Structures are given as structure tokens and as C-alpha cells.
């Protein structure tokens, strides 16, 4: 799985951090999401799919 994140779209909702804390974090200065792993571990795959599904601005793309 490969993940990409569009930070320009991000509205800092934190949904991805709540869904997949191993893979997403937020910047200290403005809460914009950062990607911790472009190729997440197998065990985090479901959480990442969920993060992508709940991101309110469709900023998270997953390639299987």
C-alpha cells in the first residue's frame, strides 16, 4: 500500500490521526496532517483505508 497526502487541502480535522495514529500526525504550528509512513505496515492498512474514507476533504489517497 502507498499513501499520499495533499496538505494544501487539509483542514486539520484530525480524523486521520484518530483513525491511524501510526501513519498520521499533525504539525505543531497549524495542525495540518503529516504522513509518517508512505508505505504503511500491513497491520495498519485497514486503519489507513478508514482514515482515507473519513477525511472530510478527500486529501488522503491510497494505492493498493
Amino acid at each position, binding site marked *: 500500500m502507498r499513501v499520499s497526502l495533499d496538505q494544501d487541502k487539509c483542514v*486539520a*480535522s*484530525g*480524523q486521520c*490521526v*484518530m483513525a491511524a495514529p501510526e501513519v498520521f500526525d499533525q504539525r505543531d504550528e497549524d*495542525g495540518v496532517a503529516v504522513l509518517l509512513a508512505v508505505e504503511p505496515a500491513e497491520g495498519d492498512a485497514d486503519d489507513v483505508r*478508514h482514515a482515507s*474514507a473519513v477525511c*472530510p476533504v478527500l486529501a488522503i489517497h491510497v494505492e493498493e
Partner: protein
Amino acid sequence: MTAHAGNIPPTALSEEPPEFPMPRASGCPFDPPPPLRERQREGALTRVRLWDGSTPWLVTRYAEQRALMADARLSADITRPGYPSGAPVPPRGNSIGFILMDDPEHARLRRMVTAPFAVKRVNAMAPRIQRIVDELIDAMLAGPRPVDLVEAFALPVPSMVICELLGVPYADHAFFQENSKTIINREVTQEQRSAALGRLTDYLDGLLGEKLRAPQDDLLSGLAERVGGGELTRREAAQMGVLLLIAGHETTANMIALGTLALLRHPEQLAALRDTDDEKLVSGAVEELLRYLHITHSGRRRAVLEDIEIAGETLRAGEGVILANDIGNRDPSAFPGDPDTLDIRRDARHHVAFGYGAHQCLGQPLARLELRIVYGTLYRRVPTLRLAAELEELPFKHDGSVYGVYELPVSW
């Protein structure tokens, strides 16, 4: 959309659009108005009639609601032609912060206050919130019975929390709670609402002045610093403060009181929640209650900027759209099984109780944390908690843009 039985009968479209908002069925205080369910079965889009005679679109299904809320061709600006306002539109300049603005202005202002609402920053407040909750329960247990849970607990918890975060003195709570109540009441006059908004804006402006002179470690001081640096005007900062103050306590308070009432009416689920050590069940209950109760029951409202094709219809530029997220959160294609049943074990995390798109609730990590602590503490510490009135006697907030109960008499 296989979960929706039947297709649109041709007659349904030629009918007069029904009035909106619609009344709930008596005796069903947790369920959306029944006509919304009927409309949802018929199709994703329908028309409704508002107080001013306008007939905006009403979007009833989850998938179309999410698609539209994420679509930049819809505007949240209440002054746009076609915006389906619930009441006469206030004069320009008298606004509640960025919730009614579009990007790029919305994004510019929102990003100035996103950092304090980041998940980790919010979760670091857990011990403080736990203490507030415990102390309020101590005081309640030491006081007379029955007690109004709204006044003794549901309103003070989020009010105290948002006051600390913003740097607003809690001693002023009677003032800001009263004005917030007026602003979100859908039945007050435009003059009453504007006056309340003006009072709150002046109040926040005064606080910003103090923070400019003597900054502290709170959100308003952060805004004051940006005003000092020329990044935003003092008026913009005061309006943002008003938005955060209102949104930060009214909503969560209603979720605490109405959520408690819903659990008291579902004793087996209340028992499961009270007796569990599993934090996942508590956070699952938070998501399910957010979905099931959907307290922001007036719908998200938008104006169409450019024609949009969706679900076989064309939304025209200049038309209004209301996204009825209460019925969206009961859509069987998104929440299989029986979406009208409260089930704290359901995976409800994809609900739209916080909206969706660029305006999705900024305070949701905070709201979730407060609700996890409240639902995880109150029923354990007061295991015999019970309603001290008949359901039929309770004053529900049918007249508010945020649903809930005005009073909740409880005993133990």
C-alpha cells in the same frame, strides 16, 4: 443505493414541497421527523419550503450529502443569492466567524486556530477535564435531589473547558450562556439575535484588549498576538472568539444531557457502558450517540455557485441546498442493520454529526474527549442514576438550531 426500497413515484415530484424544518413525531424525541425518512426512501434529493416561501433542495441520503459537502461549488456564505437561511439574513459584517465564509478566507482564518485543536494537544487536556468532571459530580452528589443535570453538570463541563482553552473567565458564564442560547434559538427575532451577537462580540473584543496588554497562555492571547502582528483585524479575532465560545459549549452540553437521557431509555446499553473496562466501547458509544442523536438538526445549509449534476438532478447556480444530516446518519446504506436503533457496539465512526468537507467541526477532537470522559465517568460514579420526570414532561429544544433538552431532572 440498494438499501433504499422503491423508486420515485412520478406524483411525488409534482407535490407541493413540504415545510422545513419538520416536526418530530410525538413520543419519539430521538428520531428525525418521519417525513424525512419517507423522502429518503423516495430519492436522494427533494424540495422543501422555508419560512420565506423559497424552495431549496433537501438532500436526504448519506452518499450524496458527503459528496456535496466536499464540493467547492457549494458556498457556506449566508449572503449569497439562494442561501437557504433559517431566518432573515443579518446585515453584512455582523457575522459569526469563519463558519459562514468560503475559502480562501475561511481557510486563512481557520488555520489560525487549528493548532490548539490538534488531536495530541487536545488529548493532553484529559487529566484537567477528568478533574472538572469529578468535581462537578462530587458537588452534585453532595447536593439536594432531584437535580437538573443540565445546570449542574451538562452545561458547566464544556463551559469550563472552553473557558480554560480560550482564556475566558468562567465567572462570566451566566452572561455568555444566555447570549449563546439566544443566538442559536431558531424562533427569536433577527433583532434579538443581532443584539445577543453584538453583546458577545463586544465582550470578546474587551477580552482581546486585555490579552493584548497582558498575554497569557491561552487561545485568545494567541489571537491577540496575531492582531498585534497585523495578521487579522481585532473584529475578525473577536468574531472568531464568539464562534469558538458558542460552538464550544452549547453543542457538547446538549450531547451530554440528551445522550444521558437516551442511555437512561436504553438501560441494557447503559449497563454495558457502565460495567466495561474497554475504552474502545466507550469511544464507540460516543460515536454512536453522535450519530443517533445528531443534535445539529436544522441541516447544513449552502448556496450553489455553479450548476452541479447529482443523483439525476441538476442543482442550479443560485439555488439553495439543505443537507439533512440527521436522516443521513440514519441512512441504511451507510449504517446497515437497523439504523434507527441505538447500538453502542456499532461501528459508527463515519457518521456526519460533525459535518463533512472544509467546514467539518474544528472542535471535534475536544468534543470527543469530553464525551469519552463524561460517558466513561458519570454512570460509574452514579450507578443508580435515574430520570426524575416523565419523558413526556421534558422540555425538548424543538426551537433550537441545536437539539437537546432544556432541563433534565435526575435522581439516584
